[in-house]
């Protein structure tokens, strides 16, 4: 199961958990699984998130692969200048 790290102020929407484990093969599946497990995270996901999968930042690609042993960090949607 991929380990998804929530930033601190998201944890109140996930029963205070820092890490949520989800079954997912892609970033999109991972986000969907997160929302299913913790509906309170819905607005954050809808507002737009970037994620980092095993060190690689992915701005908005739901198709990017996630491996069972992947470490995922959620980030706010990143903009560039």
């Amino acid at each position, binding site marked *: 199961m991929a380990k998804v790290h929530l930033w601190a102020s998201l944890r109140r929407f996930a029963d205070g958990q820092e890490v949520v484990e989800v079954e997912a093969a892609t970033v999109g599946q991972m986000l969907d699984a997160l929302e299913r497990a913790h509906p309170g995270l819905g607005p954050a996901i809808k507002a737009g998130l970037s994620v980092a999968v095993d060190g690689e930042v992915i701005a908005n690609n739901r198709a990017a692969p996630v491996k069972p042993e992947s470490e995922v*960090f959620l*980030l706010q949607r990143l903009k560039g*200048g």
Partner: protein
Amino acid sequence: MARDDVKTGYKYVGTRPNRPDGLDKVTGRARYGADFSLPGMLWAAVVRSPHAHARIVKIDASKALALEGVKAVVTRADLPTGLTGEDLNLQDNTLAGEKALYDGHAVAAVAATSQLLAQDAARLIEVTYEVLPHVTDVDAAMAPGAPVIRPGVADYSVPEGMHGNVARYMEFGHGDVEAGFAAADLVREHTYKTEATHQGYIEPHAAVGQLGEDGRGEMWVCTQGHWYIRRMSAAVLGIEAANLRVTPSEIGGGFGGKTTIFMEPLTLALSKKAGGRPVKLVMSRSEVLRATGPTASASMDVKIGMKKDGTITAGQVFFRMQGGAFPGMSPIGEALPCAFACYDIPALKHEAVEVIANRPKAAAYRAPGSPMAAFAVESMVDELCRELGLDPIEVRLKNGAKNGSKSSYGPVYNVIGLQETLEAAKAHPNYAIPLGPNQGRGVASGFWFNHGGETSVSLAVGEDGTATVMIGTPDIGGSRASIGLMVAETLGIPYEDVRVNVVETGALGVNEPTHGSRATFASGKAAVEAANQAIKEMCKRAAAEWEIDAEAVEWKDGAAHPAGPNAGKFPPMTIGEIGSKMGGSGGPISGHHEVTAGGYGASFGTHVVDVEVDPETGRTTVLRYLVVQDAGTAIHPAYVEGQYQGGAAQGIGWALNEEYVYGPDGRLQNPVFLDYRIPVASDLPMIDTVIVEVPNPGHPYGVRGVGETGITPPLPAIASAIAGATGARIRSLPCSPPKVLAAIKALKG
């Protein structure tokens, strides 16, 4: 570290050929936004609010419409209703709804047969306002009693009990910061402030739009991203994006400020009302400064603990940022992860709130959020270094992020070049030059994520053996040249035989704008893939001609070569031969690649600046400036240096003189280049550069992206150099002479 010292075996990558658009740009032929005209074209002008916050009671355009030659007026009533989220924000910013939310907010627009007539007509549109209380300062906007500008602006993230102007909240971190502070020998805590600044591109926004009764339209516009312009304009006007064709002009600078819409949809709305005649709208400089997208202003608390040997034990920040009267615009989501990105620190806590205020809707500006965060954190690190008598580069080498470090925002860094930039800065002759009286040296590092994003590129092989590459990322600073070099390298043909064109929305799949330092990275990566696809097809054609397996053909030096058991059996078949025969060998040959590009590599830089401060006037002169930055691979080193130098110059302006000045009436007091003081030629020294190359494994040529990081270190580096020269630490930008002089006098008591 420059290309000359690194043997890469590349033939074109790393060279400095002339850019393809150079000739047009030195002869005045290049067409920018305001340079397009069409038969029957009308000119537009915009009526803007003179108030920071006001209810719009009535708009009376009858006198304007009575003028001969005035063809159309649009107000918010002409735009569709029912939009939500960011689309509604965009519409609200295009034309004010019930309320004008900042000085310069567009209220109405008019089209007429000449520019002067349109301006005359705009003056005749009478708007009745009911002025409301306003707030423009970030801290004042959160203070008890501050007027709540837009009730209900908070999103899911804002905890109960925060001020009504707070729109977003964020917190993250790791480790035990209290334990970290307890383990430190020195803990300091201060508040740092930065004022809003503007990208300051020299070309004002300009567009020509045409929209017919059938809802089909076209637009010619200066933008960093024409697909964004298309999607946003269509949303604001309630038309089908597919019916809008958007062609980007040459772009006179953007730096993030041209990644979104401001007045562009007005050309279409006016055109439709004027019977489909094309409408041109060009902003004045004061409109650009008042009503486009400056960056956020920030107020930032920083606390850092350090041991006597320079080890940083813990860090904590609380950032408050305002990005104008619209939620979601301040870069808190970027500023927080950038704050400690250069460090590997065991305990960190980051918190930020976004506040709205009666200011224009902020847009991205070169590494959005990172310069402010760097100002706060790097200034504080410098303060600790000075207090403990430590060398600022050594402290950064000791605590700096390395390959495999866990980043401050969570993920582990793959291959990064921060340490290499620090070593190069330390070894540079500038770092050893002795300083004179009233002189000081400042050091700071900076970070940007870089970006990939949605990208679509296509490449066509010509009958003459040339290649034409179609990209969708407007070329701001030489990306056509760098993409041309990579394609030349891949195809093995001369750079001059590759033509790279930025094409309109009808000619390619969707592309994100040129932002986030992604053009050379992502369009380059896709162009290389497109070239590889064409190579595969060319090998196939050669194989068919030779009647051998396609797998037994390899491509090198611009030609198909028989390989393996067939090696040497046939003379190589060049791209020119294949191209000249392609009609008869199966048809035109092209390659294309569409991807949401991943694999981008973070970029780090280290700057060293020496300044001299006039102790009697507080005026700072930059004596010498050094930029060291990891480019991954410098495809066209001259334009890499150009990005480093340009970023540094913008950062120097931010540090010393640039700021938005609002009066007590909430109006912008300096909406002209006379008083919005960007650096002029005589303000700056030559800007020395060192290109560090730690190739990014996520790109076929190791590109990281070089545009953004360079603006980040100058803010703290300059403030620290001033501290070195005077003993006075400026914690509120800009380091303007009155502020520096007051600080010097305060030291003397």
